[in-house]
């Protein structure tokens, strides 16, 4: 496997792409400054009818799920012992690292009384029955664990070889935690909705099954995002595709996708909630768009021929990403109603922050792969 040894890509850091990404990040930073001076109301459309907007529903809930590539790859490589996927681990882990770190940072922008955030983990304040406590604890720990998992990549360059050795010895523990923690908080991110009860439309209020549905789709999103990133990296940095490897992985995805749909639709039918999907409403409309995003890949991924076609595989991954995104946005925003007369659509500055955070993530990813050994060395690709 030595031919897969990762190496820095090298190359110029300032390109038109990175310049645009940098500009978007700066725009977001400007909005955030305004937010901290004039308050949340100055830059968002939040209200007491929609106390959570896209900074939570997208930046945290979707953002962290999109950052599940590292988690999914860790399951595949270290738990199911599929060493052949090893080349995918590092790039996936890097994307996860940024995704999660920024999701964690975004929370601070959204917290009204951010200076008290440490109360979350302070005995006497912590309220362990709160789903949010669990989410916050597991996400924070996972971010630490990921930096540990990723640290061998940069500790060498920083000249901490001794520390690197020690961390490498304990790597199995970080890997185990790196599977446990996301499993817990991805489930709990859905679990946040349970206490909203009937304020969540029946198409998404699956009660005790929400955590399972969110967990299964988080793993699916992890797979999808690895395909997505691998394809973009191949195209963007003009490298050979790992299609064979990805196609094989798509087999796992297919099985998991079917299992998810059995749970999702089984629950909707058993609860009778499926009926509301056939009544014309905004919720029903978005439910079907979401469902189509999950149903089409069932077909796409069912044949090895389609799985081995980089284009179709990419399309299937895109649909799954969209489906997982919609499930979360639908459950947290479209399907949330706390009484009549409230509506929400993100304000422009709110969108700027979300876009800027994504831009910053991509920017950081590009800088890292160019300067650190993340991607498998070019000469070794098939």
């Amino acid at each position, binding site marked *: 496997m*030595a031919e897969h*040894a990762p190496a820095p890509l090298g190359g110029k850091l300032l390109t038109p792409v990175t310049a645009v990404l940098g500009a978007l990040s700066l725009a977001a930073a400007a909005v955030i400054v305004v937010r901290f001076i004039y308050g949340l109301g100055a830059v968002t459309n939040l209200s007491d009818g929609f106390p959570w907007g896209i900074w939570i529903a997208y930046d945290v809930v979707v953002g962290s799920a999109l950052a599940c590539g590292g988690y999914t790859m860790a399951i595949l490589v270290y*738990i199911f012992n599929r060493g052949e996927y090893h080349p995918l681990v590092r790039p996936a882990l890097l994307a996860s690292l940024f995704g999660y770190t920024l999701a964690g940072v975004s929370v601070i922008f959204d917290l009204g009384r951010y200076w*008290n955030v440490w109360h979350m983990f302070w005995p006497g304040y912590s309220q362990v029955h709160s789903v*949010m406590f669990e989410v916050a604890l597991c996400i924070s720990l996972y971010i630490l664990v990921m930096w540990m998992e990723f640290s061998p990549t940069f500790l060498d360059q920083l000249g901490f070889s001794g520390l690197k050795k020690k961390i490498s010895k304990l790597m*199995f523990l970080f890997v185990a935690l790196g599977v446990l923690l996301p499993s817990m908080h991805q489930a709990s991110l859905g679990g946040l909705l349970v206490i909203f009860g009937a*304020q969540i439309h029946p198409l998404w209020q699956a009660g005790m099954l929400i955590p399972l549905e969110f967990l299964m789709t988080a793993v699916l999103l992890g797979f999808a995002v690895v395909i997505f990133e691998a394809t973009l990296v191949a195209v963007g940095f003009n490298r050979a595709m790992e299609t064979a490897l990805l196609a094989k992985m798509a087999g796992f995805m297919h099985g998991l996708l079917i299992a998810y749909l059995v749970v999702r639709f089984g629950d909707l039918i058993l609860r009778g909630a499926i009926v509301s999907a056939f009544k014309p409403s905004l919720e029903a409309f978005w439910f079907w768009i979401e469902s189509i995003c999950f149903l089409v890949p069932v077909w796409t991924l069912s044949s090895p021929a389609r799985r081995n076609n980089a284009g179709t595989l990419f399309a299937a991954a895109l649909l799954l990403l969209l489906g997982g995104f919609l499930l979360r946005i639908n459950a947290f925003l479209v399907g949330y109603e706390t*009484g009549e007369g409230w509506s929400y659509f993100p304000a422009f500055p709110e969108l700027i922050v979300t876009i800027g955070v994504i831009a910053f993530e991509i920017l950081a990813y590009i800088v890292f792969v160019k300067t650190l050994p993340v991607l498998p060395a070019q000469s070794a690709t098939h």
Partner: protein
Amino acid sequence: MDRRNFFKSSLAAGAALSTGRARARETRSILPEALGLLYDSTLCIGCKACVAACKRENDMPPEFLPRTEQPYWDQPLDISGKTLTVIKVYRHGTMDKKDQEENGYAFIKKSCMHCVDPSCVSACPVSAMQKDPVNGVVSYDKDACIGCRYCVAACPFGVPRFTYDQTFPQINKCQLCKHRWKDGGYSACAEVCPTGATLYGKVTELKAEATRRRALKPGAATTYPRGKLGGPDQSYPGVAAKYVDRLYGETEFGGTQMVFLAGVPFEKLGYPNLPPRSDAATSETMQNTLYGGLVMPIVFLGALTYIAKRNVKDDEQGGHHG
């Protein structure tokens, strides 16, 4: 402990879990000393003395209609970061008669229900929302609050409100005027209510009063207490009203410490039909099942560590390095 043993004992712990300790969290029941309000919609004349008194006694700022040309007096349309209680109006058709569903109108109070099993308390990650263990009043501590607004989203009545327009925002909600107790005071809204539509007292006594009213024959002569049950007698003669057959707050989510009587169905007055089981109980049962005593996470971690230890090693021998 070698890892094989660790794995085994983890499994044993898992088995202990599955043999079923009761982890279900039941809906809480009302505290014997619970304090609250009885609001009788049929007695309310919509004067909003309570709204004004609530503002004054809780130091809340006035609120003006958007684009109003008369920013002279407080004009809240709903509870908000600036307003802890409002009186709302139900209107239908010609609005001929009070407390009538068809072609009628009715008043309804909106403020914290002081739930028996509050979603806000269960949701709050930092114990900023607390339910008093004796009188059950649900209070808010802004010095603990992180401003996450999970309570706002969770409350089935849409009660906690946030001051989005402030640099250093906070939640505002009715705390039953607990700050007035030390001087022998009680809820300002009940104290000023001229008709006793809002009445303060122990929930057991408030419920007994509600039962008394519901048993009266509509139109019969009776008396209505005002202010505080068990306080100085301020009762006055009145006529029994016709109620819909329901004491709102008796069973909803295990009950609330603010209870309502009305002549118009409660759904029409903006109060949801809630099941007897609280969302807090469901949410905490889920949490306990998954994470109770950290049993499941530890078992899972044990198994994962065992597997990872084997596979990560293989991987390193296979040439994994940085």
